[in-house]
């Protein structure tokens, strides 16, 4: 066990965990931020996507000891109330079916739009290729990203 100081959603947190604990479990079980989801544990499904200094990363494969003083953003910190343009676009297009992958999809899309505010269809395809939606809501995900980008 070791103490780690983390900057998450603009706030300081201290956790006492095994150093190789992935951020996924630190966030879910030690900080009660459960918007980040467990899907595969090997960075293949994207359900655990968070931002590290604004870059989309897979929290399931990111040990807490590797974070240092870099800033973490989770879906809970993307906006205080669901008002981020992507969250609003997700509501407008009524994207979710089961909903389990959607926070990861939104976090990945938010990192994309931060880099590329008006991505083409092909750029969206490429950027979102790491996020599985088992229910198959891909068309609505793409439509929502385009709506958010246009807004």
């Amino acid at each position, binding site marked *: *066990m070791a103490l780690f100081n983390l900057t998450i959603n603009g706030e300081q947190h201290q956790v006492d*965990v*095994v150093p*190789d*604990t*992935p951020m996924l*479990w630190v966030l*879910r*079980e*030690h900080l*009660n931020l*459960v*918007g*980040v*989801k*467990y*899907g*595969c*544990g*090997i960075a*293949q*499904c994207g359900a655990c996507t968070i931002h590290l200094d604004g870059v989309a990363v897979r929290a399931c494969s990111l040990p807490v000891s590797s974070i240092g003083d870099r800033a973490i953003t989770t*879906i*809970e910190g993307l*906006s205080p*109330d*669901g008002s981020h343009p992507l*969250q609003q676009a*997700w*509501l407008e297009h*009524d*994207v*979710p*079916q*089961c*909903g*389990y*992958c*959607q*926070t990861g999809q*939104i976090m990945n899309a938010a990192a994309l739009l931060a880099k590329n505010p008006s991505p083409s*269809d092909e750029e*969206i*395809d*490429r950027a*979102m*290729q*790491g*996020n*599985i*939606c*088992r*229910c*198959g*809501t*891909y*068309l*609505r*995900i*793409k439509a929502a990203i385009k709506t958010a980008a246009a807004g």
Partner: protein
Amino acid sequence: MASVKTTLNRRSFLKVSALAGGGLMLGFNWACKPAPAASALKAMPESWYGINAFLKIGENGLVTIMSPNPEIGQNVKTSMPMIVAEELDVDWRDVVVEQAGLDTQSFRRQLAGGSQSIRQGWKGLRMAGATARRMLLEAAAQRLNVPVDELTTDAGIITHAGTGQSLGYGDVASEAASVTVPEEVELKDPKDFKIIGTTRKNVDALKIVTGEPLFGLDFHRDGMLIAMIEHAPAFGMKLKSLDATAAKAMPGITDVITIDAAPEGFDEQWSDVNAFPEKVVVLGRSTWEVMKAKKALVIEWEADSKLESTADHTEGMAGLLQSGRAEVARRDGNPEAAFQNAAQVIERTYSAPFLAHNTLEPMNFFADVKEDSAELVGPIQTPEFLRKSVSSILGLPEDKISIMMTRMGGGFGRRLYGNFGVEAAAISQAAKAPVKLVYTREDDMTQGTYRPAYQVIYRAALNEQNELIGFHVRGVGIHGSPVFANRFPAGTVDNYLAENLELDSNVSTGAWRAPRSNFIAGAEQSFLDEVAEAAGKDPIDFRLELFDRAIANPVGERNDYDAERYAGVLRLVREKANWGADMPGVHRGVSAYYCHNSYVAQVVDLVIEDNQPRVQKVWCAVDCGIVVNPGAARNQVEGGIVDGIGHAMYSALSFQEGRPVQRNFDSYRLIRQAEAPREIETFFIDNGIDPTGLGEPSLPPVSAALANAFAKATGTRLYDQPFSSNMEAVELSEPTG
């Protein structure tokens, strides 16, 4: 209005007067604090009045509607309360939806499966709303001292036109709660629907996109332990020895135990599919620590039956298809003579592999088992059956066991089989502690309950006039045959034979979204495309001719479809897609299928780009009767299409000496964003018929529409799934003309 008898049972209308704070429904609520469904017009009330098990009304007119069925992403948590709200006649913005727990005295069929929630819930939900409305009207009539028949309702307001008086539902809710339950109620004429038939957004959407706890894995109870399992690595193996010394010594680990989730005398339900009831269980304080300890277990497994490989399955099924003694499921006319006399016989074989369900939320369940009671919380499509199994394994009566259904991160049939819930209960009982059982993705993908592997041979006989005079289907599966003997084209051809075969195996299988249909529709509709081609006919015209036959003069009396409705979706998709139009570079395939009481026809537009096939557009016509929530219905249809294309193209679960070869998403391929169709357009038949299934029917036919389009593009037919592994050999090039 139609007058109908109220057939709900007594408890459903148990009246509770002046119940404060939620009364009857409290205790079912854990993470999901009630939140207004849409942009709420009203604040949370101070008192709730329970009118019946489905709904309670606040003094300010806010209405809580219980959603009885498990939510797996099929959107029943929005669509079922819409049906209650319609007959209650309230403003949807004044509705709050709560998930009900398992309560077999109040609700019927709290089950998510077979695309039946709306179809089988339809009348009961309407009655629940209509009955409550009637009770509110009677209370208002008393209060205003006017005849009840002179009162009308609109959006939660009761009006007496004669005197101009009006009351809100909240004003009379307290009195309505003690009105005698009417024996008959009037239901609305569907043409007067205001909520049904309009798009209402997912009531959980805001919680989903903000990451609030909704799913089973999100459930937390202070003091609970995390439990994870190891099961045998291969079908046909069992535990030989366990050395848990190292694992137990690891930080955060409280114990390592073994359980048997199907012991002697266990009263097995149909939902108890469990290839590995004997499990090693690691218990500890956090998931990561338990995951690490799992890897430190020293376990020896030994074979106790044959360790099968995919080659055994493939050859075994092929052998049965060639020479196995089949069960004759249906026989019309003289098929042997028809094939002997045919001018042309077409024969094709189709196959598909095992598939894992791969819900994105892996299996999990919370259980807190005490001496005389048990509480379970988690994602389950069949809570009623889970409770029976849990009752048997714990030795506790069912009424001492509560089950709360969480929102599910996908179902697809996997969560019909609640072995993980039974295991959680057994673990909690053994550990004498509340536990949350969590499967890793690898545990989830390797534990069985797969979509069966299938093979089928189709044969068609055509006469000199290119008419279909004989049809023969012979199917085999592990486990069960995929053939539906009484579905199309049965009934359209004089000489018909359907045969079933089954290959035994120790690999466990279960229902997977649109069971059997998910394979046989694609095979049948691909085959008919080739038969139409051999007959020199347009594939839609060819099918419509067969339906004409089934309408005018059907063969046999057990045909399980309505030929007019079937033909209706084909005609609609033909018109909408402008079938037959010249579209350079676009290759089109068609398919149609009937399952779960609904009819679907699809046209796939395929293009070749960078030597890769890409689905440009799917046109889809659906007849599922009344569409309760059109936007959500389209979402289901789109999801089924993407799911159907994805699994037909990319997915397979194979075996090497009993071991599942694919254990996670690095080797088990699922469809992703760049492979999804660019566009899907869905058209619903508007016929006013009571609603039928929609969670499954759009999936089965699409693999054939895709394969038929691919054949148009390349001249190559696809017979074996996953298609992508066969496409590699096909020369693909950009269209030249």
